[in-house]
């Protein structure tokens, strides 16, 4: 059984432009699949549809067409079964800021059916594994650096033992040391937990280092999904950035295109 099967997946959003309603296509017939234990990285500019894909797979959006399955479960019709298997880490750590890391993890674990006796031992253990200092477990989240907060976000995801982990720019904005720590932890999750990982990122080196296959998502279309070496060979590129440029016709950090800017209003 495939870990993820996405077939002709479509999603569009409606935005108001004055009195007009404009339909913006966020995903245009996406098709791909993932094997169990595989890590794929999806590269794309802001507004390319990366977050929309993550939110569809985590049952937070309803598609306008096509299908998506997680370990055989349909994300629309069998959403609760999907939710048991999936967790995510996004660019924003997203916690109750006045509450401590331990409090945030405790209540979140209850949503996955974990009792107090299960979490009281497991939370300190997981926080220790992500390198979170024990003496700061009871401080409010708002006192912690972004790197620290992202470690708690990883701990939250690990706590529920997800078989599919969705990572939406998990290292964006982190300092180099924190970035390396998070990347090391992602490797560990695959090695120890056999998790399947979908990594959406801006970081080309990160994609190349962590993923078996790299996808290029541009304006809602998946232009390629191959190993980094195959991508470079196909586009006769020295680097992944050059391959991205060749595939999309634009640089990776080029965000000044008018259509992109309009799309980002809706998709960001």
């Amino acid at each position, binding site marked *: 059984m495939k870990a993820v099967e996405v077939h002709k997946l479509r999603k569009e*959003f*409606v935005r108001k432009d004055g009195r007009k309603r404009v339909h913006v296509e966020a995903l245009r017939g996406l098709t791909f699949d993932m094997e169990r234990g595989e890590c794929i990285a999806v590269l794309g500019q802001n507004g390319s549809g990366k977050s*929309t894909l993550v*939110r569809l797979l*985590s*049952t*937070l*959006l*309803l598609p306008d067409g096509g299908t998506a399955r997680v370990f055989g479960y349909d994300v629309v019709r069998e959403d*609760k079964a999907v*939710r*048991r298997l*999936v*967790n*995510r880490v*996004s660019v*924003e750590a*997203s*916690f*109750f*800021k*006045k*509450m401590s890391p331990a*409090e945030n993890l*405790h*209540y*979140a*674990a*209850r*949503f*996955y*059916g*974990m*009792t107090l006796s299960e979490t009281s031992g497991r939370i300190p253990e997981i926080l220790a594994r992500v390198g979170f200092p024990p003496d700061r477990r009871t401080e*409010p989240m708002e006192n912690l650096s972004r790197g620290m907060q992202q470690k708690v976000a990883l701990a*939250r995801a690990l706590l529920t033992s997800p078989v599919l982990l969705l990572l939406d720019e998990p290292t964006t904005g982190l300092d180099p040391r924190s970035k390396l720590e998070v990347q090391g932890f992602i490797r560990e999750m695959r090695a120890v937990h056999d998790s399947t990982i979908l990594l959406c990122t801006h970081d080309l080196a990160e994609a190349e280092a962590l993923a078996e296959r790299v996808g290029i998502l541009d304006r809602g279309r998946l232009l390629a999904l191959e190993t980094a070496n195959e991508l470079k060979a196909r586009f006769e590129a020295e680097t992944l950035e050059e391959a991205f440029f060749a595939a999309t016709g634009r640089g990776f950090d080029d965000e000044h295109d008018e259509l992109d800017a309009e799309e980002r209003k*809706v998709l960001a």
Partner: protein
Amino acid sequence: MRAVALELKHELIGLAGVVERNVYLTRRYIYWDLAFFVWTVANTLTIVFIAKGIEASGGNIDVDRATTTLLIGAVVWAYLGIIFEFLTETVAWERWEGTIEYTFMAPLSRAMHLGGSGVFAVLYGLVRAILLFIVVAAFFGLAFDDANFTAALVILIVASVSFFGIGMMTAVLPLISPEKGAQLGFVAQGMLLVVSGVYYPVEVLPEWMQWLAKISPATYALDGIRAAILDGASLGSLWHDIWPLLVIGAACIPLGLLIFGRGEIYAKRHGKLKRSG
């Protein structure tokens, strides 16, 4: 059968998680809660003083009875406000903190998710309502020799089921309108109480409003609590207030879940189930 029991266990643990989270938050914001309690006391005093004012301006009333009648109205208003606030914040606060996506992608049914908010709101609201009643009653030196407080409490708890159901309907508003939805919860609270005789008998309302009063749970809650506290009515004699509350509650809970479910589908279709709406 075993799978169903395990599923139910997970759901109840999830419900406990929502209560647990609200306990943590209340602990962290305890001084703000105290400040809001002072505001609620001041607000209640301004209403209850009206009875004294009528007496001072020559009105011929039983001032203690009128004071208690107004106090009960103000306490039920405050209690309802807390229930609606907590349920509406189920979405609004999570959106503000940015946790909304993580909560809505967890394998917890919406009934238990909202139920956890409702259970905490009722427990927290009861504590606040009882404290408010005691403080203001002590301020006015009110005596309740014949009051049946047990019956009053039972009525309030039974009415809470309906309030919870209606609260779920208002909780959907921030899903549909992230900017203004939460405030619309206060509109629903006001509409409910204006037709329910919060500070006056329902009979003074225009006839069409009296029809609305018949389907408002607050009407029966206020009527029953006043009869229990002012006249010492027993639970048995309050059955005419209890059965409508049970019927309205039985209708409001599934209706509230249905409306919230529709709102959630709308939010998922239009991409509103996220931090920025």
